[in-house]
């Protein structure tokens, strides 16, 4: 056991920091926690990293991964969080790509991996349905074989940022007679295929982050099936495990605490900086202790992964605790800005908006707090994660 960075790791940190400082798009500085970005804004940094060869550090080297050690990846995460970088979205890079390079065929790898790496192609995740949320295995969307095509019918929902998507990966039922988990297939769909309609869902913070995705007689070539027919649940679960790693969001929360400290130093209570009032100082300390706990739990998990064990049910701890920290952070940030949380930054055309009212740091404080309630719901809700621990670890 050893917590010191080696001289090589320190040099690596310097290299990474210099690269970010030089290349991170200036106009995007500080907007990494916003939800209302354009496609170009979301992809800008991804594209820079693609050119540098750093967009997909976790992939195997032969597909474009960097071969970094977990310590290097940790440093990479921290340095990006320092500038609130808008990181490559997970749907392509860390969800569908691992499924494609693990279970896909050579044509699929050649066709899809380069676009994911470079940031040219945007992917969305078509798992959830109105009737299939926590009980994902109950998906009803069907894919029926018709010659060399599948014909897909059904409705997906909560499809994050599908309004920008070029491709999507969908769980579809290919054997309606089999037991729930056994008749599902994992199919890649070009989002421009006729019969796909993406309808916006507005969330409580006012942003358009998710969508309903309706599929009516969507004809998809059979070669878009990944792996074997009716084995999709295996791939879906494999993907969920990948979705969970990194979900702890340690580096980003560290940066969030720094930002909270800055705010609490500027806000005053009866002339005393908020950060010096015992009540608030202790809340920040508590949060920092929770975050440190999370960090070392994640480092332990990474170490056991590096030792050859895949992400196990223990990563459910990271999901639960990581999202609790993220939510608490936004809660304290809103508390810190007090009444200036009220102006509605997004607003609407008819109403005008409250952006720029009060100190800069108060913008989006309430909106972000509202939005982050999603984290204990998506990616397997925190109740489901606790069920997984109950079943898989406690054996109850």
């Amino acid at each position, binding site marked *: 056991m050893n917590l010191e960075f080696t001289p090589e790791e320190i040099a690596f940190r310097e290299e990474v920091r210099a690269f970010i400082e030089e290349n991170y798009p200036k106009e995007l500085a500080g907007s990494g926690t916003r939800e209302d970005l354009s496609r170009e804004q979301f992809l800008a940094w991804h594209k820079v990293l693609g050119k540098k060869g750093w967009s997909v550090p976790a992939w195997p080297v032969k597909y474009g991964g960097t071969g970094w050690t977990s310590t290097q990846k940790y440093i990479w995460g921290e340095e990006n969080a320092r500038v609130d970088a808008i990181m490559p979205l997970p749907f392509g890079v860390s969800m569908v790509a691992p499924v494609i390079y693990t279970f896909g065929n050579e044509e699929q790898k050649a066709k899809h991996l380069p676009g994911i790496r470079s940031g040219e192609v945007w992917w969305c995740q078509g798992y959830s349905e109105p009737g299939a949320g926590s009980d994902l295995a109950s998906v009803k969307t069907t894919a029926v074989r018709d010659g060399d095509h599948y014909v897909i019918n059904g409705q997906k929902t909560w499809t994050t940022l599908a309004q920008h998507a070029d491709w999507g990966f969908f769980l579809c039922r290919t054997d309606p007679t089999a037991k729930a988990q056994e008749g599902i297939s994992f199919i890649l769909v070009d989002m421009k295929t006729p019969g796909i309609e993406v309808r916006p869902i507005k969330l409580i913070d*006012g942003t358009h982050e998710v969508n309903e995705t309706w599929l009516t007689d969507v004809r998809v070539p059979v070669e878009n099936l990944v792996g074997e027919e009716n084995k999709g649940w295996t791939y879906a679960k494999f993907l969920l495990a990948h979705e969970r790693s990194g979900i702890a969001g340690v580096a980003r929360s560290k940066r969030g605490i720094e930002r909270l400290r800055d705010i609490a130093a500027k806000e005053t209570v009866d002339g005393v900086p908020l950060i010096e009032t015992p009540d608030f100082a202790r809340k920040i300390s508590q949060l920092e202790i929770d975050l440190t706990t999370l960090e070392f739990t994640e480092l332990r998990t990474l170490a056991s992964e590096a030792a050859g064990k895949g992400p196990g049910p223990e990563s459910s701890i990271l999901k639960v605790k990581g999202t609790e920290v993220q939510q608490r952070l936004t809660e304290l940030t809103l508390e810190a800005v007090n009444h200036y949380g009220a102006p*509605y930054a997004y607003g609407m055309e008819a109403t005008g908006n409250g952006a720029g009212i009060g100190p800069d740091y108060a913008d989006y404080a309430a909106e972000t707090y*509202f939005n982050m309630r999603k984290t204990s719901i998506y990616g397997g809700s925190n109740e489901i994660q606790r069920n997984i621990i109950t079943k898989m670890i406690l054996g109850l």
Partner: protein
Amino acid sequence: MDFNFTEEQGMLRDSLAKMIRDQYDFDTRRKVVASAEGWRKHMWMQFAELGLMMAPFSEEDGGLGGGPIDAMVVMEEFGKGLVVEPYVPSVVCGGGFLKRGTDAQKEEYLSGVMSGENIFAFAYAEPRGRYNLADLETTAKKDGSGFVINGHKAVVIGAPWATHLIVTARTSGGRRDVNGVTVFVVEKSAPGITTRDYPTVDGRRASEVYFENVSVGGEAVIGDVDNGLPLIELVSDEAIAALCAEACGAMKVAQNMTVEYSRQRKQFGTPIGKFQVLQHRMVDMFMEAEQSVSMTYMATLKLDEDTVTRKKAASAAKVRIGQGGRFVGQQAIQIHGGMGMTDELAVGHYFKRLTMIDSEFGNVDHHLKRYTDLSAGAVPVAAE
């Protein structure tokens, strides 16, 4: 001891509940909130016709002879319907100051509050004052028999709709001194007042209000010059009791909606309400909502007791409601799953309102400290 409502209060509640049910359904509210005006003047006038604005005032003052309990009844229904019209700013705060003003002030303004024609907003918060009502950078300098007001008031709820403002300003002493604070009533259209209006995250409207050499006469002072703080604290405590009642209404609805949703929503072949972990969570929500009601009654009933008792009661209730509102709001979203995150469902709007109530008139920490200081006898009290 008696926790029953009078017959009049029961009738007021029933007819208000009916009016809100008929004319304030969630879709209508959404449209109103998204409109340029952000409220409905005609709805406000209907509330006035129903007697809501007159209810809490004495018959002497032209009211119906009620008091804070009537305001509580009204605000609980407002909370259930997520009503955005400015009852607390105009009736509880505006009316609360004016009924303690001079006969001339009552004559000039209070009847208008009761008819609904005068709409008040309470400009007390400042950009750097946080929740300390005496932490004022807005000044009112003596000028002949009147005053000249300069300053910036922050997040004045309901100000875009207001015809008049109640303004707190420093007339002497240093920033945060308990003495030297004075309350003024001004017309919002007075020369030198400008506003920047905006929507709030919970569907209301507010303004930043700027005063630049705004001249007012001596008759604009409510209460005593330099000794306005006790009155400000009293009216703020009344506003707290009313906000607590609003939160109770919102909590009850959010909790009921969640129970109902858990009955309808099926996953794994069973209603999610059958999962014991969610059952217990909903029981906790229920207990929080009930306890909030208890504390709201307590604070409302103690508004006319001695100053320290009243302040402690208001702070205690605000702490309980802040904590309960947060729990109920967050869990309502959680148990609704993805649906809870949507703008389309009402539950998220209850969550947002409950969140923001905590930041009005002092949050949990502020009131926990105020309560602690009062218990220790450590609060500087202005000469009364």
